[in-house]
């Protein structure tokens, strides 16, 4: 069975690098397609909301950005755990590549939330459980980036950053369940697996936008991880061969 497909092969930067390069345009194209479909449904077709009027349309970016901000953090924590347990090189690079995009998603979640809160609640910001825990998530991203940037040796930076990520992961269920555990101004979840309180076009518009944000994040993170790979593996033969060729 020597030709058996081996997933572990892709854990090596030398094989992952070209694979990521091939995949980026596809993820970018799929993101654009999902984005067009989601915006069409959400902004042009979906009816108005009987309580919030047209202001509810912020949901089509607020919810996808919030989901991604939490999901990207979980993925980073997953890579941190793998890196700490097996001492794999690629995992630290993956976490490093995801962090800025995760931070931007957390920022967008707060930004669109403020613009939604002002007309609906009468305030840009309240120190409510949901909002505060999302702000802490943004600080965790910034803290991770600052900490890893402050340590010169990348492997040690990965270890320290990984610990921070694993400790901070406790914040994710707090964000997610905050609207259940505490009385908050923030509304409860509009979508769950069994039933949804939204009109069908609204729901599909939002899910399409979530797919768009997901594919976008993958594309940008893969772009970033390829640069990190070249930088960190610059003494490896495959990078030297890559740089000697006509690298894009």
């Amino acid at each position, binding site marked *: 069975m020597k030709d058996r497909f081996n997933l572990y092969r892709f854990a090596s930067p030398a094989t992952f690098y070209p694979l990521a390069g091939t995949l980026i345009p596809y993820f970018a194209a799929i993101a654009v397609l999902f984005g067009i479909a989601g915006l069409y449904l959400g902004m042009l077709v979906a009816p108005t909301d009987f309580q919030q009027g047209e202001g509810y349309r912020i949901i089509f970016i607020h919810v996808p950005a919030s989901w991604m901000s939490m999901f990207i953090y979980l993925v980073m924590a997953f890579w941190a755990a793998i890196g700490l347990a097996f001492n794999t090189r690629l995992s630290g690079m993956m976490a490093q590549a995801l962090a800025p995009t995760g931070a931007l998603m957390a920022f967008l979640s707060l930004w669109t939330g403020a613009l*939604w809160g002002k007309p609906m609640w009468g305030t840009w910001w309240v120190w409510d459980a949901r909002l505060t825990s999302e702000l802490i998530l943004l600080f965790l991203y910034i803290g991770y980036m600052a900490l890893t940037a402050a340590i010169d040796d990348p492997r040690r930076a990965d270890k320290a950053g990984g610990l921070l990520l694993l400790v901070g992961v406790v914040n994710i269920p707090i964000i997610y369940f905050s609207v259940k555990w505490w009385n908050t101004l923030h509304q409860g979840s509009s979508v769950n697996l069994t039933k949804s309180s939204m009109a069908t076009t609204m729901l599909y518009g939002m899910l399409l936008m979530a797919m768009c944000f997901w594919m976008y994040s993958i594309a940008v993170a893969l772009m970033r991880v390829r640069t990190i790979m070249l930088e960190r593996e610059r003494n490896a033969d495959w990078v030297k061969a890559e740089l000697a060729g006509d*690298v894009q």
Partner: protein
Amino acid sequence: MIYWNSFADFLHMGGYGFYVWGSFGVTALIMAVEPILVARNRKTTIARLKRQLRAESRTPTE
């Protein structure tokens, strides 16, 4: 089945135009600028690594 009667209606967003377009505008801006910054960083990194590689190959090491 387009929900809006006119383009002006669409922009007005039932009076929530500032909030809706403020959200979508900043999101669009970030999603346009982030890939550009990543691509630019990639270019400068590759140029620097190439320079370093050339410098290393000029100075023979044992």
